[in-house]
């Protein structure tokens, strides 16, 4: 027998410490695993499921933990901006509702728009018109943006594909492409389009900026411009400039697919079709077959008295006579 075999199996100090270490580490690992398991269980409570609308307009529920935040990187390069500007925002069909009973001709929409798009005071993407159809019919104010028609006469006649219709319903103009023939202006029955006849308002200031087709800045001499439904703001998830600027609750903006529109003043979101249904909504000159995406609610029960100075000449004569 050797000496080694005779020795009793007594653990050395080092071995003991080693074993303690392993057990300890194991315990900590297991403990943390159990803890993690429990906390995972806790997270899976049914209250944490969320509702999501699919592109097919179906409402589904998903677990909040399975969702990841969509990346929101805004394009900065001209090619990217142009591509994005032609594609639009997938799954959306933008609509715009104007409640004529609320418009008091504050013109905050017009000034906000002109500021955003660097327009001269006499240039209008949106214009508040004083309407009076005949002697006996009432006068009212009618803000008139581009109708973003689903059958747009302007797009049909453009010879160079400068103006186009996006899948999300918006009609835009690429002023890097526009040749300034003004056929679209002639074709538009709503007088919605303008040309930069003279040097654009902020040409110097905008020099060197990358052209953004969704904002139409920089404006260019000799090219056509018009209302864009503030495509740049929509991309950021905000309401159009005019809609948010209105102090009187005239405008609603939203998605037809979602059947929801949001009032720019009250920020209240209402069902789009019900809003039209309850208020007798209509579209401007829809007999022309243009199929506008702008809807009007009639100037019924105007929320304000029509002041004498606002009345058109014709009506003044009538009230005096």
């Amino acid at each position, binding site marked *: 027998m050797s000496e080694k075999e005779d020795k009793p199996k007594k653990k050395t100090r080092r071995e003991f410490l080693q074993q303690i270490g392993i057990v300890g580490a194991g315990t900590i690992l297991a403990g943390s695993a159990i803890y993690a398991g429990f906390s995972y269980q806790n997270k899976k409570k049914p209250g944490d499921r969320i509702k999501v609308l699919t592109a097919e307009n179906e409402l589904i529920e998903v677990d909040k933990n399975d969702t990841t935040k969509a990346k929101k990187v805004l394009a900065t390069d001209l090619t990217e901006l142009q591509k994005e500007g032609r594609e639009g925002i997938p799954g959306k069909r933008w609509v715009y509702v104007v409640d004529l009973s609320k418009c008091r001709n504050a013109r905050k929409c*017009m000034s906000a728009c002109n500021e955003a798009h660097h327009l001269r005071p*006499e*240039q*209008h993407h949106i*214009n*508040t*018109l*004083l*309407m009076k159809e005949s002697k006996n019919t009432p006068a009212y104010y009618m803000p*008139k943006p581009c109708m973003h028609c689903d059958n747009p*006469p302007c797009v*049909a*006649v*453009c*010879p*160079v*594909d*400068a103006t186009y219709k996006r899948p999300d319903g918006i009609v835009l103009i690429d002023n890097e*492409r*526009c*040749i*300034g*023939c*003004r*056929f679209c*202006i*002639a*074709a538009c*029955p*709503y*007088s919605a*389009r*303008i*040309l*930069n*006849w*003279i*040097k654009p308002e902020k040409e110097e200031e905008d020099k060197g900026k990358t052209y953004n087709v969704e904002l139409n800045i920089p404006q*260019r*001499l*000799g*090219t*056509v411009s018009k209302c864009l439904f503030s495509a740049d703001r929509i991309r950021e998830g905000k309401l159009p400039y005019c809609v948010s600027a209105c102090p009187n609750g005239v405008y609603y903006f939203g998605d037809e697919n979602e059947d929801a529109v949001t009032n720019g003043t009250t920020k209240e979101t209402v069902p789009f079709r019900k809003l039209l249904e309850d208020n007798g909504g209509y579209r401007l*000159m829809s007999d*022309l077959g243009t199929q506008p995406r702008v809807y009007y609610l009639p100037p019924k029960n105007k929320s304000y008295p029509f002041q004498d100075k606002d009345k058109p000449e014709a009506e003044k004569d009538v009230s005096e006579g």
Partner: protein
Amino acid sequence: MDNNKNLYENAVSDLLKPIYPNRLFKIWMAFLIVALGVCVYAYTIQLRDGLGVTGMRDYVSWGMYIANFVFFVATSLVGMLISAVLGLTGAKWSAPIARIAEIIALAFAAVAGLVIIVDMGRPDRLLYVFTHGRVQSPIIWDVTVVTTYVVISALLLYIPLIPDLKICSERLDKAPKFQRRIFKILSLGWTGSDEQISLIKKCTRVLAILIIPVALGIHTVTSWLFAVTVRPGWDSTIFGPYFVTGAFVSGCSAVIIAMYFFRKNYKLKDYITDMHFDKMGKLLVLLSLVYLYFNINEFLVPWYKLKKFDAVHLQEMFYGRYAILFWGTQLLGLILPIILLLFRKMRRPSPALVISLFVIAGAWLKRYLIVVPTMEHPFLPIQNVPENFKFYSPTLIETTITAGTIILTLLIITILSKFLPIIPIWETKHNQNESKED
């Protein structure tokens, strides 16, 4: 036979004589070039500052330039009428004036292309029309047919000219050498063999047939630039034929005016005779009557119904802002000429010239009346804009540029008619021989 040959020799020297430049020609050319220079200067101002130098604004966004464009396309149509319609139907009398008509057609159609560039907000992007063209736009159709028309018109001018170019290279003794050499090169080795004669006849015939649909095309498509919109005054289904007949009226009067000046300045009394004025006068009456018929349809039918927006438009025309222009154009430019030209005396050269000047001025103003008043009355009211947005009046620069396009056309006509025999020499002789054989 000898007598016949002498006649031909005389004709050749008569018809070649105008080709030598004289003093009058030099003065006229100098005047045209200086005037054109002024107009080009006006255009450089527009290029620098943009279309804002014109009277056009957001509502009246098409003005004098587009009216002028329609007028140019219209007047160019006469080439097709005379060389194709009259030529193919065997009207021999029109042979001596066919070249005049062809030169007018070519000059007006080519300058029409420039007129439309003048109207562009971004002429620097002209090539986009070809690189990014979209086929559903009537502008693309217009570009296509006008280009085709210019090419066919040029061929219709050139091919019958080949034998004459040969004559020129041989007989113009006093002309500089290089000029004769150019004539020789352009005559493509013409010898007058039977084979060549039959080839030239075949070519001319094919082109004369081809040009008919193309010519109808250019003006129908030009009318569609307006008729495809929903605007009151343009929203019409008869705009195609209405424009085409109006075009013949304007082109016919242009040919009569040109005939008068060539006859006088180039001493061609024996070739452009009173008979030609008489026949052209009759043709002008016929075409004007057809045009009057379309006018009645275009104005009386909407006037009977008085739809809301048509009513506004017609009121402006009949007794509003444009009444003087409208009635002036209709009476002095259409109805009175029809009545006067019914009398043989009025179809003599001098009265025919005066009447034609009225007709062509009326034709230009009529295009203005087609373009501008409609744009001043859109469906929705024009509000919150300066006063000059509401009514259009052309500016000096705009008028100068427009005048420039007319001067350029006169320049082209002058040059072509000066350096080429304005009356077909070979054809005249050939026809004489043929009629002898008959």
